[in-house]
């Protein structure tokens, strides 16, 4: 997303033209870019699936672990489940992308892995549950428009998680500025332990619950089936996830590339010392980065909760790990890279999970191995991720 507004020429144009230009620059272009990513990731994975399906459908007598049971025509199966596989990949890919942004933004400005981000994400999921339960208690869940419910859930989660991320930064990371990079990492792990148990204790006292299932069955809109083709259907929830993720990604793109604060954040991520010499309030920029990253994490938590229907204090860890992997895959510190990485990782997961069950000697359990193997392969050829810049050599 390298949108550079051409300020000099836009001043001379008519307001309408300026608006058009703005729309093109900040809405249309990023949306198209996201769609392009979806297309690239989806297309390449589909192609891969078809090729693998075709090549492996014949019995490979030499290699036992690649043998498919005789009753199954692998190619046919792959074709049959391809649309569902793509849908699965895109949905979870967008969730990963939104979480990965939190990792990548913090990495961009502070150069450290914010391990507590997965817990911020979890808190988002819990806040979404609380909002929904409270709405239900007030008998407003079924009477309010589903859109309002969603906006309310995401909005509250963004505010709370943004604030939480800022507080975490103030308390646990700020005093460690300038320490070796591993020190804030350990502090972040401490925050992560602290937050999971804090939420667990809080919800145990508050509602005496551990599992927090979203009452989505109260809102018929969420469960309405959209039939895309024969045997391929999805629910409105999936649609909500994809649309809100795109809105957030576009919003973030605008924020980072077109606003003054965004410019400040970019400056700080390039060179803190010089940025501060230029009159940029580095501390403020770091706080804002955490706030934005946390808000996005919180929103992703709500989306994940809606999708998976149950939230516990421990849901953060695995999506957090995956999203971090996605951020590295795309090139950590690079916002566009995080999106591409998230979508690709989601696709890869869907691909391996869809194919591995047909090989009795392997099985679903290996899907993470393959996902990590792909990551390692990518890094072998592009040591700084798919879209990462080459690291400047210190001389």
């Amino acid at each position, binding site marked *: 997303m390298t949108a550079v507004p051409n300020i000099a020429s836009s001043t001379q144009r008519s307001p309408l033209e300026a608006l058009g230009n703005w729309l093109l620059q900040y809405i249309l272009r990023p949306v198209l870019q996201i769609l392009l990513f979806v297309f690239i990731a989806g297309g390449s994975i589909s192609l891969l699936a078809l090729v693998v399906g075709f090549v492996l459908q014949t019995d490979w007598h030499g290699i036992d672990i690649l043998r498919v049971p005789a009753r199954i025509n692998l190619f046919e*199966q792959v074709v*049959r*489940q391809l649309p*569902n*596989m793509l*849908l*699965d*990949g895109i*949905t*979870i890919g967008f969730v990963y992308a939104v979480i990965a942004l939190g990792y990548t933004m913090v990495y961009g400005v502070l150069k450290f892995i914010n391990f507590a981000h997965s817990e911020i994400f979890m808190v988002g999921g819990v806040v979404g549950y609380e909002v929904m339960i409270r709405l239900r208690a007030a008998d407003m869940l079924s009477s309010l428009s589903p859109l309002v419910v969603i906006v309310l859930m995401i909005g509250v989660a963004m505010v709370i998680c943004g604030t939480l991320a800022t507080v975490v930064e103030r308390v646990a990371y700020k005093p460690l500025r300038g320490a070796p990079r591993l020190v804030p990492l350990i502090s972040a792990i401490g925050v992560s332990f602290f937050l999971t*148990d804090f939420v*667990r204790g809080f919800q145990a006292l508050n509602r*005496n*619950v*551990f*599992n927090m*299932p979203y009452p989505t*069955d109260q809102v018929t809109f969420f*469960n309405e*089936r959209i039939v895309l083709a024969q*045997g391929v*259907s999805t*629910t409105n929830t999936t649609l909500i996830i994809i649309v809100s993720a795109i809105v957030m990604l576009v919003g973030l793109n605008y924020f980072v590339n077109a606003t003054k604060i965004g410019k400040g954040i970019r400056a700080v991520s390039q060179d803190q010392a010089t940025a501060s010499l230029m009159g940029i309030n580095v501390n403020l920029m770091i706080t804002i980065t955490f706030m934005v990253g946390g808000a996005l994490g919180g929103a992703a938590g709500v989306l*994940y909760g809606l*999708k*998976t*229907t*149950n939230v*516990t204090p*421990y*849901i953060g860890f*695995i*999506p957090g790990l995956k999203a971090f992997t996605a951020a590295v895959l795309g090139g950590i510190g690079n916002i566009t890279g995080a999106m591409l990485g998230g979508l690709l990782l989601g696709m890869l*997961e*869907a691909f*391996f*999970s*869809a*194919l591995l*069950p*047909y090989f*009795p000697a392997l*099985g*679903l*359990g290996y*899907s993470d191995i393959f996902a990590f193997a792909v990551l390692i392969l990518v890094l072998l050829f592009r040591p700084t991720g798919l879209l990462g810049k080459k690291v400047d050599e210190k001389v």
Partner: protein
Amino acid sequence: MKTLKLFAVVAILALIGQAFVAAPTSAQSNVIKIASHSPLSGGQSLLGTAIRNGTELAILQLGSQVTDLGFTLEFVPFDDQATPDVGVANAQNIVNDAAILAVIGHLNSGVALPASEVYNRSDLVMVSPANTNVNITDRGYPTVNRLCGRDDAQGAAGAGYAVEELKIETAFVLHDKTAYGEGVATFFAAALEEAGVEVLGFEGTTETANFDAVITPILAQAPDLVYFGGIYNQAAVFFRQAREKGLESAFMGPDGMDGSDLAQIGGEAVVGLVYTSAAGPASLYPAAAQFVEDYRAQFGIAPEAYAAEAYAATQIVINALVNAITENGGALPTRAQVAAAVRATEDFETVIGTISFDDNGDPKVATYYILQVASADPEKWGENPLIGSVQAPSPLTAKEMMGN
């Protein structure tokens, strides 16, 4: 300065020593402690806490049997964090406290196996409410007992019902990649294949939230039955998402499904699900219904899976303590005596049914109840109808029967 500091440290130490070496020991010699040992923190804390709570409730309600004999009965909860290292360290801590005469635990077989080695060395009795792994009792230790069924028996019981009553021809078997889930699912799948049912897939997944990718290949093969070897807080999410994606197969699971949260999380998707359980349903056992009520009154929540088993395990331990004390002429029994008394349990009525232990510590005959979820309302969990039951003798008992 420095030497002053050094001597200050020594002096303070000496003072502390004076203070407590002289102080009287407060605890008396007639204290008996029962420990619960399960994960109380981390992702598995839900079930670990249920074990802890079940034990505590039993001690609160039935402790008077021991205190009436002139002893003080205390409850000590331990957190094994579902990690073998922590479990073994705790086990050492437990065996060195001479007042602890019994352990109720663990949740994870991976922790129970090394920890029970430590208990066994000190003759400390362990009664497990949840470890279904066959190796737990197959070692033949005199101190290790369990109340829950064995994986092999339960898997076969479920498969028998699926073949005979549900008349399925194809099945897809999933498990949660824990020792418990994988074990029971393995035996279930093996029994199905023996009966001529085609097992379309046998897969393990550690996924707990987003099952999309798992469901897609199942959907493409459309099996008659989907079996999930695991615990309900993972399984319910899977079942719900599977129904939402349009999977119409019948659902089945082991005793890990037995908890009202299955209905709470799964909603309409789990209505009709068939599960096997070694714990007698509330509809058959009035004591079980009473237990659910008491548990709710004490802890404010419905009992999770294994709470009833932990309660029953503590019932057995308290009964054994009373017997051991009586046999010992009213004096504090040794650990070995308590272990022997637990092993001698014969036709003892507990909240989950009647229990006798065989020489390996397995229940002599385990009854598997087959139940079906009737309502999406978690409040009505206790009303799930009983649709069958299977008697499964333990391997030792079966061998004896063969010998006769």
